[in-house]
């Protein structure tokens, strides 16, 4: 009895000692670093704090979604960088998903040539470092484009040149009403789908859900154009001579080559991983499932929609979300080709000017970290919700 008690006590102490030691070691390292940092910053005459964020930045940013020039603050510069990071990530995710799904499905094709082509696409683009692909697109491929005066012309609407891709500018009137109409369309699609599901489950009536949903999505915004005074016109880019040899385009929107190169490389690289996920997902649905579905009389479209896709998506979505996250993190490679993303604007330019290494690097890392953590929390929730509930 006594011996057993002693043993338990002993185990408690044995468990406690390594924990205390680890925490102490960690704390001492942190304190050591912090005190060094304090001394170093004192020597350089700067004190820790985030007050610099409201100081005037006095540098320009080549590409920004919101108004920015030298008179704005460092905080605003951070915001510009963050928005640019989000912009390239969203474009990259959009393109990578489309390309990845196509390549993934092509890898499963019964056509030998298509399957092989898709396989080689994956093998080639997955095994070349992303940074080299970005360099290739930016320094080699896009530099081979013509000067503005000999631009590659797409039906006089948009022009591809070495200085970037010029596209028409959208000029909206009553844009907010248009946005509301889109939101309204989605809400009505949601309620319509609920109604259709009820009809199917209670009365066995099958409504053409997809067609009607698309119809709603087109009809309601169209009504806002016709009835509520929303209108859209385009400002087409026009060639303008600046001097004897230098030309440029005016009026349109210019998509800078840095953005094109980055979006291309990111989406082509990430698409290879998404393609593998898609392939694994479709292969992961057992053959028996399809046969069982066919044997109870579902047609091909119904099998795909009701049996294969729900199960395949459960396999595809978690790793693909991870790839989206990777793409967002990889967009920080923008710093290599001077696309003004968060790392370049904030962790490089702003850091150089202010010398506040600790504050700036921590803000940058914390931004990425909070993004990752929020997505992983969402994924945990999603996985729990989607997990097959077995008894």
């Amino acid at each position, binding site marked *: 009895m006594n011996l057993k008690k002693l043993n338990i006590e002993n185990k408690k102490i044995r468990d406690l000692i390594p924990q205390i030691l680890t925490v102490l070691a960690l704390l001492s390292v942190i304190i050591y670093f912090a005190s060094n940092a304090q001394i170093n910053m004192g020597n350089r005459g700067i004190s820790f704090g985030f007050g610099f964020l409201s100081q005037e930045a006095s540098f320009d940013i080549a590409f920004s979604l919101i108004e920015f020039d030298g008179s704005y603050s460092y905080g605003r510069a951070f915001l510009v960088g963050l928005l640019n990071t989000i912009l390239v990530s969203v474009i990259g995710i959009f393109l990578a998903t489309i390309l990845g799904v196509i390549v993934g499905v092509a890898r499963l094709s019964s056509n030998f*040539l298509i399957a092989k082509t898709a396989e080689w696409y994956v093998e080639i683009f997955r095994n070349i470092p992303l940074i080299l692909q970005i360099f290739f697109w930016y320094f080699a491929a896009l530099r081979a484009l013509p000067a503005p005066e000999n631009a590659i012309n797409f039906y006089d609407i948009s022009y591809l040149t070495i200085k970037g891709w010029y596209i028409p500018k959208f000029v909206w009137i009553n844009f907010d009403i248009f946005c509301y109409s889109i939101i309204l369309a989605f809400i009505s699609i949601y309620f319509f789908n609920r109604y259709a599901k009820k009809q199917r489950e209670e009365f066995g009536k099958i409504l053409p859900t997809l067609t009607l949903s698309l119809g709603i999505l087109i009809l309601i915004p169209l009504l806002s154009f016709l009835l509520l005074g929303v209108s859209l016109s385009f400002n087409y880019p026009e060639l303008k001579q600046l001097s004897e040899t230098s030309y440029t385009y005016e009026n349109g929107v210019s998509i800078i080559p840095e953005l094109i190169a980055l979006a291309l490389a990111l989406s082509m690289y990430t698409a290879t991983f998404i393609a593998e996920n898609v392939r694994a997902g479709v292969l992961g649905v057992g053959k028996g499932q399809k046969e069982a579905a066919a044997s109870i009389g579902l047609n091909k479209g119904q099998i795909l929609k009701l049996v294969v896709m729900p199960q395949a998506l459960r396999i595809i979505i978690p790793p693909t979300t991870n790839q989206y996250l990777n793409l967002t993190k990889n967009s920080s490679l923008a710093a290599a080709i001077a696309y003004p993303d968060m790392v370049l604007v904030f962790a490089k330019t702003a850091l150089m000017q202010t010398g506040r290494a600790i504050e700036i690097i921590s803000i940058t890392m914390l931004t990425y970290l909070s993004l990752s953590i929020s997505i992983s929390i969402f994924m945990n929730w999603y996985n729990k919700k989607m997990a097959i509930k077995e008894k």
Partner: protein
Amino acid sequence: MILNNLKPTKEKINTFLPLGSAFVVFAFLDVLTNTFLNYNLTGFLPQSLSYFFPLLLGYIGLYLIRIELSGIRFLDRLNKNINSSNFNAFLTLLILFIIIKAISPLMNWLVLEANFTGSSKDDCTGNGACWVFIKVWFNRLMYGLYPDVEQWRVNSAFILLFALVGIAFFVPQKIKKYFIIFLLFVYPFIGIKLLSGGSFGLTYVETAAWGGLSLTFIISAFAILFCFPIGVFLALGRRSSLPAIRYISIGFIELWRGVPLITVLFMAAVMFPMFLPDGTFIDKLIRVLIAITLFEAAYMAEVVRGGLQALPKGQYEAAKSLGMGYWRMNMLIILPQALKLVIPGIANTLLALVKDTPLIFVVGLMELAGMIGLAKTNPKWLGMAMEGYVFAGLVFWIICYAMSRYSQNLEKKLSTER
């Protein structure tokens, strides 16, 4: 009625097969003469029609030869693999024509019109690639700014490494252990001494001069060496029953996994020196190595954790019932099995590590991609970006493809054993 008559069946094989094959052959002939002989067989047609003519012709031809169960083995295999439906036939033709069209400019640029001999940009007179650029800069691309006369040291360090690894595969099991210990704990110091010099009569070469492909290997080798044990400890820590250790491990792993490598490298370059006592200086390469190692260790930890989780509980209980302690249980029972399970995952992490090494350009170290960046901005060699990056891409592709094939083979081999 007419449509029914046009349907390819076995009865009509004698008319449909020759006709269809003739159509397909003519379609390919048209594309081939167009690309390689620059002669348009269908020049008499309007230009837009002439362009799509082979596609149309081939499509009809493939339709005609799509005879089910024809009895001819070759035809059946062809139909099954590339001609199973109208859509497939169209895609087949499209892909083949694109390949034929693309191969000629590609070959011209890569080989036929490229320049291989010479010593300066002026020797590149052809329209193709200027491989002279790679030839002239080859030493720099491999060794960075390492002095030419000292490059034998880099070579011998790598030859020694490969020789040791090679021998380790063949020596008997008894000595193998000592060989591996030597490789892991003694060789790194020999290698570093050989490369940096400063004693034994070797001149000192500062790390800023290291570069090129050899730097990629050096960083990869050291990062692999260190990130593996750290990753294993982190994984064990995350599965530990002691809350303090578990939470510290989780925090550490998630911190590194949540941020891009580039910010970690920035941190190593500009933020880390602030945390050291005034006046101490840690070499840039070492700072970068620490950063990459910790970063990859976090990923390694997650891979190893996957293996640990996959092991059945019975293994732990069996080990404990034999009276094994925590460390003996993990070292002798759990880890050998868990690591074997996740060998593909480990290989993938190492592959990612190799692919991440070019990022060290942000702190001013130049491996292969960085050296190309330097070479292409040399005033004598402007406009050579394409050649440079194609070469670098090829080199990295060979390395990474070999690694990924090896890991796939390993995976197959191990999966059959179970």
